[in-house]
């Protein structure tokens, strides 16, 4: 069963890259563990939210492109993993091990819909 781990980091005033309390080595170690466990399906880290652009298409087909969104909440989506594990408990264990779950961040675990 596939689960997406949505990694939300605490939004900070300073925008310092290591302000989430996790070092690059922590992320590398975690990524290595996910790969070696044979559960990795997909995963990316997202560039800074200030680089985001939003697109909407209106009922008449007109396209609106805007800068942002900007962080209105305390936590912003910083990256994700999709993992393939037997059940939610295993997915929650992997989420708890993720550096993004620590130091004020959180991981939202969502099952990937099956059709």
């Amino acid at each position, binding site marked *: *069963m596939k689960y997406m781990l949505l990694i939300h980091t605490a939004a900070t005033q300073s925008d310092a890259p290591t302000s989430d309390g996790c070092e690059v080595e922590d992320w590398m170690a975690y990524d290595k563990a996910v790969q070696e466990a044979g559960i990795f399906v997909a995963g990316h880290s997202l560039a800074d939210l200030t680089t985001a652009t939003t697109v909407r298409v209106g009922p008449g087909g007109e396209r609106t492109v805007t800068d942002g969104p900007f962080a209105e909440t305390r936590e912003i989506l910083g990256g994700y993993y999709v993992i393939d594990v*037997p*059940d*939610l*408990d*295993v997915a*929650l264990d992997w989420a708890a091990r993720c550096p993004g779950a620590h130091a004020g961040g959180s991981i939202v*675990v969502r*099952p990937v819909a099956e059709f």
Partner: protein
Amino acid sequence: MRDPRADRPAETGARASVEAIFREEHGRLLAALVRRFGDLDLAEEVASEAVEAALVRWPVDGVPPNPGGWLMTTARRRAVDRLRRDKAYAARLAILQVEADRAEPVPPAEAGDGLPDERLRLFFTCSHPALSAEDRGALMLRCLGGLTTPEVARAFLVPPATVAKRIVRAKKKISQARIPFRVPGPDELPERLPGVLQVVYSIFTEGYAASAGPDLQRLDLAEEAIRLARILRRLLPAEREVAGLLALMLLIHARRAARTGTGGELVLLDEQDRGRWDRAMIEEGLALVPAALTGGPPGPYGVQAAIAALHDEAADVATTDWPQIVALYDVLLALTPSPIVEVNRAAAVALRDGPAAGLALLDALAAEPRLRAYTPYATARADLLERLGRRAEAAAAYRQALALAGTEPERAHLRRRLAALESPGEA
């Protein structure tokens, strides 16, 4: 929600006895079916069908020597039939089962006899932290207590549609997010077991001190919680906090008859007729306390059981071992710091050191936001103010408690105290 038992009234004594057996067997049957087929919906459906078949057969043929085995065999046949008819469903379940087997292989099917007790898995699934807190109790009563949806609704004083919605929502999450049917390993157990005990205890406290409604106590809920704790105690005999929770509930529930007066009003511990306490239940509770408190550091349920035991062993308030109770509250506060425990400790200090000492502790908690709407806080203050002869302040505190009280018996008790305070001649 399909539930044949809810649709028709009990017609005959035979039927009632069949239903009693079913209620006893339901959790065990359901858990074994879930284990076998890995799907709660299918398990509930075929369990209901097996019961329907029993309700038809047993009054005619007599109750079989092994009712649980009969129900299991019948349910299992129905499930196999169902899967034969619905190939897509079967294929989906097969995939689920293969994945579940990756984590933990299913043992081979057994003869109806000697059905392994798989209920512990179901306990952990029903109390999984990924389910919403209000859904957990309903699901546990439904799956392990064998209550129908309307029975759960009556117990919680909510419309059946609300309970049905909660159960559907919980089952959907279990199935779609794939919350497993498993007992956490020894390393996870300390983290997960308190969640299970919390669900059982919240069912009990809702039954013991109903948060709303005409009745102070809803004994069926309290008794159901005790029944669930007895099952847990059998399944986890080495867990001290399970023993502690069962002991605590028994030691509190033993006082049920003395808790309400002739007019249905609340009677507090100090005024209860202790001759009406249930001695056999107290003995059962007391016998569990050593198991709850030995073999490691005490847990919060064990400590609360020890406090309840001291009350239950005392002949009256005056001879209660208050120094020991205060000491136990200190232990409890260290384990689970909470303003509510502080209030109880202050009341015990008042009985050890006098009302002024207790009141000073209560007044120090005045700024605590969680106590602002907590009736026992206002009641305890009123009581101590009254004992100190500060009548005007006591009356104000009783009025405050009266405004907060959720049930009619609580209000009746407070009105009586207030009336006695305002016209001492008639008290």
